[in-house]
């Protein structure tokens, strides 16, 4: 049975590659707004933009921004890392 699941997992890996290359995933309009804000902010700050800035500039609620950041991070579009200046703050960086 383990072999069967291994085969299915290989097939899913193949479909995952196809999905990534065709960019089949989609973002809602609110998520897109947050994403565009991250892109614009990343032009101003190469070291990453903090989440409060993104909330302020996108005009979205804090919870929408957090949900979107989690989704974008899972998709591998952005990376979150801790600020060196303030350990309590997370910075958002676009993945290359």
């Amino acid at each position: 049975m383990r072999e069967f699941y291994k085969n299915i997992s290989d097939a899913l890996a193949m479909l995952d590659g196809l999905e990534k290359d065709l960019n089949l995933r989609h973002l809602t309009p609110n998520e897109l707004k947050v994403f565009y804000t991250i892109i614009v902010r990343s032009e101003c700050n190469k070291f990453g933009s903090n989440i409060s800035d993104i909330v302020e500039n996108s005009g979205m609620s804090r919870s929408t921004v957090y949900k979107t950041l989690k989704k974008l991070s899972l998709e591998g579009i952005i990376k979150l890392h801790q600020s060196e200046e303030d350990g309590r703050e997370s910075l958002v960086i676009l993945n290359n």
Partner: protein
Amino acid sequence: MKNFLTLSVTSFIFSVVLWVLWHFLDSHVLFLAGKGGFFYLPHAARVLCIVYFGYRAIPALYLGELVGPYVLEAGLYSFSTLIPSLISVMSVPFALSFLNILGFTLGETRTSPLNRRNYKHIFLITFISAGFNALIVNLYMSRNNLSFPNAITDIEQVYRFLIGDLLGTIIVFIFLAMLLIPVLRQARS
């Protein structure tokens, strides 16, 4: 034995479901009616099941191929499809053996010449198997003076088989990738 049963049932159901879906589109959807030869969905079942489950999936796939024209829509073709169906199923092992002879062995790591986790390699197998299927089935049909309803067994049919198998497989792969997005996301996280 348990694994063999599981993969046989999966392959059989996958093959029959794709055949039913294809037949429905080919005969009941107005703008696609009669154009089924250009998007033969069940070829995806042959490729996926043989690549991922191995040659043990062949008997179930062969049975799945026969269920459509013999049980679900008996009398669909005016000739016996026992041999053409066998050739169609065997086109994937032929393609794998052909690639193996050329030094492209099927594996599951990045270093494998043919990686079954890479969709581009699966498309290569699909393309070669579609070519074998188109050539050998049509050769068999022309040698025995067989033809599908309202069609002539000629070079155009070879081309239709090739395009049909390729397009059908691509459609199924994209459909599965879209359908499984939540599963793929969960696996990634």
